Structures are given as structure tokens and as C-alpha cells.
């Protein structure tokens, strides 16, 4: 296996760049990080799987800072993907300040982002796909999309994902599955499933308990019969509004996964691939309990890992998010068994990869109806704005400040979404940037009163969705972000006992169980939530501030990790 060497090769070839204190120019980076080097791969076996997940409607290259806190609980403690910063680099043998370090960790993010530039863009992805298809022959290649592609931008929200879908279809995905796609409603998902193969074995109708979507598809690649099984996000109607998909029931449905694996084998499949939106830890557990899955293409939790994780004989692939990476997995399948494999998480450095012309035009066309609005400058930021991490990000702090001011509230609750692009110090904040962290189909900002007791219940509930030691009871988002509220969390404690020392920031006093507090928040899953749209309030705040400066947030004290 040369998985590590292969990826780190990218790092090693360019490691000299970082020596000498990082006084490099973008031009030099561009010169050294070549497309040929990024795509370099020694082909193996008879089947190639290409995988992306969690694009979140980012058609163009982005900055996306990986988490600095990503705690693993129970049996996942200390294991990839629950490694961050230097621990991550050490585990995978990656040099500090290398391109790989920039792509995969949060270390010196702003400085390295200036060196290495943006990542992703569907036109760069198109170039990479064409390269692999040409090198291997289309008859050996499967391209699979793990879902959450069609949500997360202004254009996607207004067109219900059609802008991304139009571009995606040019890439000819062999299958996709979903999560946020469901927040466009049942009718829309049915439409989407007509224009791309949409697989979801774990969605059933609530009336007859019958499957709603195709559970799997069989492909013939390199002379191998490949079964691709789709698994949508199991907790969509819990993490997102159930009223948007009232007739459908989800769940992990381990027995259904098992039954479909057996059915696929019976139908002659020699390679079983699960295209999953379960989240990494759920898939790790699933792999240990359901026999016969050769490959799980993970998604949902946005982890990017430069190596395959093996559970028994099952290979787990984690391809990151926002279009930063393309996973390539070559397999040698003989007699219904994977004899050998080779893997590379291809980092899509936007400056090093020639954009595919056809796709660049398609993206321009998709953006055209909103182009002027997307580019409109609202303000500037003096500090790094990001979201990803278990507890808080500076972009969330900005959102909390905006809604507390606009809705005259003492405390703000902002959802722990893992999507949302980053902005570097000195960058302008455009309407597009604001929508990149807020574009959802239930955007109302509510204002209500809650007792301290209820507030604690909410924090405990979300904490258990993140830190339950059994991954099957986790939902895969990060902790709810709080404005105006400090607390301590012991992640090692059982449900209901993790949160303590809740403090009302304005008065500096402890939160009292029986006292009422004025709360504002957004992304409520309740039907009929009223209030202005989140992006309007953030825009108003940024416009008034003109220049945003977010200080480090020290309102959460973490223990038990």
C-alpha cells in the first residue's frame, strides 16, 4: 500500500516551499504545485472509484478551514478523523506548512491560504475527472457523489439546487445520495431523483413502510460486477424539519443494509460499495457489524483523510467537503474479493489545476441570474472568519452578534452546521459569503423566552447528539453555537450531565433554572417559525459595522476529552 506515500508525495515535493519562514509568493507555489503532480497515480487493478461528498453548492474555489477541535468519544477517541492540528500531521506523516498541512488542518490557516490559494471548484474537479477517465478508460471508472451537493449557497437555495444539478450532470455521476437535498421538499427530491440516479435504501414511506427510492444499482466496470448501495442521512427528519418530508421515514436501518448487501451478492455483485451519508463514526460501527461491504464512501461529517481506514476487510474513504478534494480508489477485484487497492485523496488546488472550459461556462451560466447580487460587497473582515469545529467558529460568533442585536435578545442559539466557507483577514464580505454560511430553506430568525432549565435541556440534547459514546445515537452536526452564554462541558459524562456553569454573559451571573431569558435563534425545525431571514440580519449587521473584528471566543470550557 502506498496510500500515505502517495499523498505525502505531494507534500514532500513542495515541502521546501515552507522552509525559510513562509516568505513565498503565490507564483512560486503555482509553479511547484503542478497538475501532473497532483493527479499522479500509479494505476492498479480493474476498477477505479472516484468520490466527492458534501460539496454544499460550492461551484467555485473556496477557502475552507478544517477544525481545530474535533473530539472523538468512546471507541472513536484519539482515532482518525478525530485528530486535529499537529496530531493530525504526525499521524499521517505530513510536514508542517506543506500543501497537505494547509489542505487538511487549521494550522496557520490564514498565512498558508495566502501561499497556496483557494481549493476546489467544479471546473477543476471536471479536469481531474476527465484526466482519470482518460487514463483508466471510462469502462473502469465509477464516479459517485455522497450527497449534500445541492445546498449551501444563494443560487442553490433560490433554484432548489438546480444550479448545481445542471453543472453536476455534466460530470455524469453514476449515483448520488442525499441529506440537505430533502430540505427542498419531497416533490423536489423526487424531481432530482429523475435527473440523476438517486440511491437511498434507508428511506421508507410512513404509511406502508415501503422503500421510496432505488436502494442500489449494479454496474459492470473493468469486467467486475459492482453494486452501489445508497444510504441517505439517517436523521434527516430529526436534524432538519420533519414537516418538509412528512411522508418519509429514515434511520440507519442496519438490517436493510444487510439485506441489500446479501441481495447484491445473490445477484452476482463481486464488489459492494456503500455510498453513505451516515457520518464517519456511524460507518465505522456499521462496517464492524454488517459483513460483506468492501468499500464505504463516507460523508456528512466532512472529514478529509489522506488514507483509507480499514475496519476488518472494509475500506472507509473520507473525501472532505466543499469540493476541496477528489478521492481516487483503485481496486484489484478478483473472484469477488478485493485483492489489492491504492488510494489518493487528490487535493484540488485551484491555482495549480487548469479549469475545464465547458464547466467554467456552465458555472457562469448557473451563477448568471444572481451574479450581481453575489458580488455585492457588504463590508470587510479584519480577522479570519470560519465555522467548522465542535464548539464555535468566528463566523458563528458574528451571526450570534448580528441576531442578538437585531432581535434585541440576551442569548443567541445558532446551529452547529459543518458547512460554510472561510474568509481571510482583509477580505471583503460579499452577499455570497453571507449566504455561504446561512443559505437554508427554513431561515427564519425567531425570538422567544426560555427558562434557564429549558436552555440547559437544549444544550444537553445537542451535546448528546455529538458526544454519545455510541455513534448510532449521534447526528453528526457540531455543538449549537451560543451568543451571550458561557458554559462548561464535560464530554465524557453521560447524557444530561455534561453541561454546567452556565453563565449569562451580560450580567456575569449564573443562569437560573426558573428564570426567563430572551432568546433568539435560527434554523428551527418547528413548523410555522416566524421572523426575518437570517441572511438579511447578518447583512444588516455587517453593513453597519463596515469592518468586522471577531475576538477569540472563550465562552465554552471543555473537559473530559
Amino acid at each position, binding site marked *: 500500500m502506498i496510500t500515505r506515500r502517495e499523498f505525502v508525495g505531494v507534500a514532500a515535493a513542495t515541502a521546501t516551499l515552507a522552509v525559510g519562514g513562509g516568505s513565498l509568493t503565490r507564483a512560486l507555489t503555482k509553479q511547484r504545485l503542478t497538475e501532473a503532480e497532483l493527479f499522479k497515480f500509479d494505476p492498479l487493478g480493474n476498477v477505479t472509484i472516484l468520490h466527492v461528498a458534501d460539496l454544499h453548492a460550492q461551484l467555485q474555489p473556496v477557502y475552507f478551514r478544517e477544525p481545530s477541535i474535533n473530539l472523538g468519544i468512546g471507541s472513536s477517541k484519539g482515532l482518525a478523523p478525530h485528530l486535529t492540528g499537529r496530531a493530525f500531521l504526525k499521524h499521517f506523516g505530513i510536514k508542517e506548512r506543506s500543501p497537505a498541512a494547509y489542505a487538511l488542518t487549521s494550522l496557520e490557516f490564514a498565512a498558508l491560504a495566502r501561499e497556496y490559494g483557494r481549493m476546489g471548484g467544479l471546473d477543476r474537479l471536471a479536469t481531474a475527472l476527465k484526466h482519470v477517465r482518460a487514463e483508466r478508460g471510462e469502462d473502469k471508472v465509477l464516479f459517485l457523489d455522497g450527497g449534500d451537493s445541492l445546498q449551501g449557497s444563494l443560487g442553490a437555495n433560490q433554484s432548489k439546487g438546480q444550479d448545481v444539478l445542471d453543472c453536476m450532470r455534466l460530470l455524469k455521476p453514476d449515483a448520488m445520495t442525499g441529506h440537505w437535498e430533502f430540505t427542498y421538499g419531497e416533490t423536489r427530491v423526487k424531481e432530482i431523483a429523475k435527473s440523476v440516479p438517486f440511491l437511498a435504501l434507508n428511506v421508507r414511506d410512513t404509511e406502508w413502510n415501503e422503500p421510496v427510492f432505488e436502494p442500489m444499482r449494479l454496474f459492470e466496470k473493468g469486467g467486475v460486477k459492482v453494486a452501489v448501495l445508497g444510504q441517505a442521512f439517517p436523521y434527516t427528519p430529526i436534524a432538519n424539519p420533519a414537516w418538509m418530508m412528512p411522508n418519509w421515514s*429514515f434511520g440507519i436501518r442496519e438490517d436493510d443494509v444487510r439485506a441489500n448487501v446479501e441481495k447484491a451478492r445473490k445477484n452476482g455483485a463481486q464488489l459492494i460499495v456503500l455510498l453513505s451519508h451516515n457520518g464517519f463514526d456511524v460507518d465505522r460501527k456499521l462496517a464492524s457489524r454488517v459483513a460483506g461491504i468492501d468499500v464505504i464512501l463516507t460523508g456528512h461529517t466532512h472529514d478529509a483523510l489522506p488514507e483509507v481506514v480499514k475496519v476488518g476487510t472494509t475500506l472507509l474513504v473520507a473525501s472532505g467537503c466543499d469540493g476541496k478534494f477528489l478521492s481516487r480508489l483503485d481496486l484489484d477485484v478478483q473472484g469477488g474479493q478485493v485483492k489489492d487497492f491504492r488510494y489518493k485523496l487528490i487535493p484540488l488546488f485551484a491555482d495549480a489545476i487548469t479549469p475545464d472550459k465547458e464547466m467554467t461556462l456552465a458555472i457562469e451560466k448557473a451563477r448568471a441570474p444572481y451574479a450581481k447580487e453575489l458580488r455585492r460587497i457588504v463590508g470587510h473582515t479584519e480577522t479570519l472568519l470560519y465555522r467548522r469545529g465542535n464548539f464555535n467558529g468566528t463566523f458563528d460568533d458574528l451571526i450570534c452578534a448580528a441576531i442578538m442585536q437585531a432581535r434585541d435578545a440576551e442569548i443567541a442559539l445558532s446551529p452547529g452546521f459543518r458547512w460554510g466557507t472561510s474568509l481571510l483577514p482583509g477580505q471583503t464580505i460579499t452577499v455570497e459569503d453571507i449566504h455561504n454560511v446561512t443559505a437554508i430553506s427554513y431561515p427564519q430568525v425567531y425570538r422567544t423566552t426560555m427558562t434557564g432549565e429549558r436552555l440547559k435541556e437544549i444544550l444537553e440534547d445537542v451535546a448528546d447528539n455529538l458526544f454519545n459514546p455510541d455513534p448510532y445515537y449521534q447526528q453528526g452536526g457540531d455543538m449549537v453555537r451560543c451568543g451571550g452564554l458561557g458554559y462548561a462541558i464535560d464530554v465524557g459524562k453521560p447524557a444530561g450531565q455534561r453541561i454546567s456553569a452556565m453563565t449569562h454573559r451580560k450580567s456575569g451571573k449564573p443562569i437560573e433554572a426558573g428564570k426567563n431569558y430572551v432568546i433568539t435563534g435560527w434554523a428551527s425545525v418547528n413548523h410555522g417559525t416566524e421572523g426575518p431571514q437570517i441572511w438579511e440580519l447578518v447583512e444588516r449587521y455587517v453593513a453597519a459595522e463596515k469592518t468586522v473584528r471577531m475576538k477569540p471566543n472563550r465562552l465554552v470550557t471543555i473537559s473530559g476529552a
Partner: protein
Amino acid sequence: MRLISRRRALVLTAGSAAAAALGWSGKSRATPKDAAEAIAKFTGGKTAENGKISIELPEIAENGNTVPLKVSVDAPMNADDYVSDILVIADGNPLPRVVTFRFTPMSGKAVASTRIRLATTENIIAVAKTSGGQIFTAQKLVKVTIGGCGG
């Protein structure tokens, strides 16, 4: 909301089993002692073995008011050896006894499904009794959450 009345839940009860669902009172949560007592009454104090019985339930309920449940026991279901009763307990509900399914060899299979209401995050315990007097049990934790904030 996908509220289904108790009457509808009973209609949905599958198989040839006769369901005896219990009512819902204003009483607060059951204690583990209440659940243990209900089980002891059902088993006559006999020790239950693990295995043979399986429970299908979601790990996290989409709607605590109507949670789909399926219980099945691997048994020959002939006159010499069959499952006669399956008791389902929700150890955090005001009344822990949720339902008892009764079977005969004529049932063919010891399988039953229904929808149950859960007051909170709690354990669902299924206990099966065979014609030979053996007792089997299995349990699963179902989380009932406030929802939101995922993704």
C-alpha cells in the same frame, strides 16, 4: 406532524398476533422497579436468556408519539415448541407495560409490529415466553430528542 392515534396504531398491528395495548394515564415516569416488577409478573420470576428474540426500533425516534416497533422470535412454531407471548416494556413510560402479543402454533411466525408512544429517551425491553417455559429477552435504547442543529 405525523400523529397517529392509538386506534390507528392498533390497526397497523401486523400478523396474527392479538395485541393487548395498555392505556395512557397521567401518571409520571415509571421507575426501573416498576419495569422489573412487570417483567417478573410476566416471567413468574424465571431468569430470562439473551438471544432468539430481536427488536427492530430506530436508534433515535423521528417522532416520540409514534415509534415503529417490530419484535420477532426465532422459533419453530409447531405444537411442541412455539412462542406463546411477547411482552414489550418501555421503562420510562408512565405505564411501562406497552403491549403483550399472544401467539399459537397457528400463527406460523412469532412476529408482530406496531407503533408505540415513548415519553422520553428510554429502554424498550421485549420478553418472550415459549410453550416449553423458556424466557428470552432483548432490549434497545431509543432516544427521543428535541431535534435540530444537525448537519
